[in-house]
């Protein structure tokens, strides 16, 4: 094989495949584990690790055709006493089907040998040493159920030393949720704390009273909730907290615990389901959909300029093909002359040619003006040009009319003006201004009708699309689009 005779082409499916399955993250996790555990037989270890299959979880989402990787929860919940850690931890466990690990549950675990030691210490009323805690937690977390279902560690690293020991043992939580609230509130809250001895759930006399009368009767007041004890614990907490904050500051999120439980929980859940930015190489393949006049070409041009990717406008592409007098261009010309829409297969071929070129494949592309309805979208998928970010620009009807009907162009200089937003500087230029016949109201309405008819199908087809309000300043819209591109795709639960 001669590289000059037949240059080597990377098949275009490899990029989307790597993205879809998160190969970079997968391999990164595997190598991390290798480095942490340092096994004697690395290949065997890697095989076992891959078989365990729990990096980002291959839990296939029910909502869409493509696989939605759901994160396996590895969460740490830290906070002052009476901030609601146990409640939040329990709710998160129920929602995400994870295992709750906390100092109390660890002491009650029957299956670990270290618990006996720990209990011995407790009976002697001594502080359980941090090393023992760490070993205990490590043992618990290496259980199969924790590996498969994920874990929520509650109230554990209480100071910097414990946090370090956890990290040295290789246990790295993916998200750390920190609850904070003013001390006064916490002291008062602690006075109303009640515990159900059977289910270990924590209730409150004012905020979280159970509805079941049986449960109500069972509730007991836990020990250590008097004002002095709470304030002592709070002092300890405030002393140790900055250490923990520094250790975990990159993956931490603070949530105000002085709100109703449901709010705290929803914030925590939303945070826990976000992914952190991965270092995987990312070729953006962006698709803009929207009514005429919503600013697709403008945004596409801005993005292409900033991130140096290829900007492809479908109409422009066809015109270029006609101008270049290529074979396909010859086919397209008669349709252009008659003003009829070009048939899908020709458009698709031209588009496929353009998108398969090297510059598009290596640096990514931003496409606008192409799939206008469901058939075209399906055909696009069939030639395996799947976008990884889709944006729907929304604009109300009046704004569209306003933007389009008032467009003018100066035939002498070629400058484009708008009567309201960018008026012509001098009256003689204004006198010259002409309107593009396709910007007449009738034509606009026709285009819009077609667009509204097809938009629903397209929205259903691209489920992971972002909706952007295009009725704002272009730079605002641009920043929003940028943030959506840069951040990892949000998970749908």
């Amino acid at each position, binding site marked *: 094989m001669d590289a000059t005779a037949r240059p080597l082409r990377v098949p275009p499916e490899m990029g989307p495949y790597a993205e879809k399955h998160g190969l970079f993250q997968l391999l990164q996790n595997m190598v991390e584990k290798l480095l942490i555990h340092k096994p004697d037989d690395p290949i065997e270890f890697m095989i076992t690790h891959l078989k365990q299959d729990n990096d980002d979880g291959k839990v296939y989402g029910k909502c869409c055709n493509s696989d939605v990787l759901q994160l396996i929860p590895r969460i740490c919940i830290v906070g002052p006493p009476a901030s609601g850690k146990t409640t939040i931890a329990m709710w998160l466990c129920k929602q995400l089907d994870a295992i709750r690990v906390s100092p109390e549950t660890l002491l009650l675990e029957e299956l670990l040998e270290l618990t006996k030691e720990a209990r011995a210490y407790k009976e002697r009323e001594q502080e359980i040493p941090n090393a023992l805690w760490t070993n205990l937690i490590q043992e618990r977390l290496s259980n199969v159920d924790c590996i498969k279902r994920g874990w929520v560690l509650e109230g554990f690293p209480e100071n*910097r030393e414990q946090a370090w020991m956890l990290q040295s043992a290789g246990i790295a939580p993916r998200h750390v949720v920190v609850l904070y609230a003013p001390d006064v509130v916490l002291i008062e809250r602690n006075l109303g704390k009640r515990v159900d001895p059977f289910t270990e759930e924590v209730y409150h006399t004012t905020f979280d009273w159970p509805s079941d009368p049986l449960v109500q009767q069972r509730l007991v007041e836990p020990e250590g909730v008097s004002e002095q004890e709470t304030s002592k614990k709070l002092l300890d907490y405030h002393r140790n907290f900055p250490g923990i904050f520094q250790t975990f500051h990159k993956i931490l999120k603070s949530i105000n615990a002085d709100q109703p439980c449901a709010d705290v929980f929803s914030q925590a859940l939303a945070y826990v389901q976000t992914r952190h930015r991965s270092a995987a190489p990312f070729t953006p393949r962006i698709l803009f959909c929207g009514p005429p006049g919503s600013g697709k070409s403008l945004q596409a041009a801005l993005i292409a300029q900033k991130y140096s990717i290829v900007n492809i406008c479908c109409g422009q592409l066809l015109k270029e093909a006609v101008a270049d007098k290529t074979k396909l261009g010859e086919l397209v010309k008669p349709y252009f002359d008659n003003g009829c829409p070009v048939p899908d297969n020709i458009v698709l071929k031209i588009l496929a040619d353009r998108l398969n070129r090297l510059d598009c494949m290596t640096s990514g592309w931003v496409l606008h003006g192409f799939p206008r309805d469901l058939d075209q979208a399906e055909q696009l998928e069939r030639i395996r040009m799947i976008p990884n970010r889709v944006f729907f620009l929304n604009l109300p009807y009046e704004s569209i009319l306003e933007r389009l009907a008032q467009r003018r162009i100066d035939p002498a200089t070629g400058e484009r003006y708008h009567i309201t937003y960018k008026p012509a500087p001098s009256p003689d230029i204004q006198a010259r201004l002409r309107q593009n016949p396709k910007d007449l109201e009738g034509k606009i309405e026709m285009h819009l009708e077609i667009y509204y008819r097809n938009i629903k199908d397209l929205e259903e087809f691209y489920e992971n699309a972002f909706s952007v309000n295009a009725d704002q300043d272009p730079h605002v819209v641009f920043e929003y689009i940028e943030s959506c591109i840069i951040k990892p795709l949000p998970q749908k639960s």
Partner: protein
Amino acid sequence: MRTGGFEARVSLGNGCRGENSQLPRRRLVLPPPRCKAAGMASAQPARTYSYFSQPRALPARRAYRGPAEQPEEPRRYANLMYDRRVVRGSTYALPQLPWGPQPDPLEVQRQEEERRKARARKRAKEHLQTRTPEPVEGRKHIDVQTELYLEELGDRIIEVDVECQTDAFLDRPPTPLFIPAKTGRDAATQIQEGELFDFDIEVKPMLEVLVGKTIEQALLEVMEEEELANLRAHQYAFEELRNAELAEVQRLEEQERRHREEKERRKRQQAQVLQKQKETSEKIAARAFAQCYLADLIPSVFSSLRESGYFYDPVERDIEMDFLPWLMEDVEKTLEKKILGRTMLDSLIRVVVEKRLDAFDQANTSQAKVSGHTEVFGQADRASSQVSSRQTSVQLNMSHQTETQEPETKC
């Protein structure tokens, strides 16, 4: 014996009540009752009538029939000719059995009438019949023969046996030959040699023909043989040619086949080569892609491990874990020492102040100056002079100051 005039009818047998009720039970198969009424459509299975009884020797019978009552004795035989159950007379009328399940009222009526008539006839006959009057009382009637020659009246019938016998059979003799009588006259004649014809002359044409024919035949045969030989030769030649051609054709075919196989093989090889090339190129592409994609893997792994804290700066950790606590302890110790020093100083000051106060109190009476003494004690004295000269206030101030220093160092 009954004479004609009575119609014998087939009786029904078992269930019948009639004149034949005394007949012994014989096995009879009943024919299906056929009713006159057309409405009766009951089709009973058609069973044929059959009758059989064991063969019996005829018993001796008397020569003469007894008086009218005697036929009432049970008869142990039956003669078909005189069987009352056989239908006699015209069978064109619709058959009807006398003792059917539903006797037709008409029939019944008719039978009753007949019976009545029979009875009437009988009565009439008896009426007309002249009989001998009854014997007078004390006397008896006896039958007497009055003919010329007496006849022996016996019940026994005179039976005579007669036999006859034929001669034994002889074999039939064979039939004699049939020689018909000779008719006509015999006559004879004789032909001598040379009288009829000359053999040599006569034979010539025949011979000629024969020989000619034979030679002709021979010629023909030879010609035929020649022709056959020619044909064979021709055929042989043709076969040779044909074989040659066949061989040629086979050779060509073989060649063609080899070519084809060769082509196929070459094509397959080429396809394999292409496939390999494709695979290789794919592998290379995959490798290149993977290399490019994962170029940043190791650095990213290390940076993430560093972020998660697994790779920590040992110096920093060491400083935090070992050095700082030691430092803190040392600072604590130093501070404690300082505090100790200060408390010592406090107590010294207290003692001195007490003594002084005592001395002052004592000297108060002699009105000694208080302010001159306090200069010696500097700060502590000034503090004590601001507040009242109570010992506890001095101590409180001191301890407050040292206490506020402690939390600052412990942080």
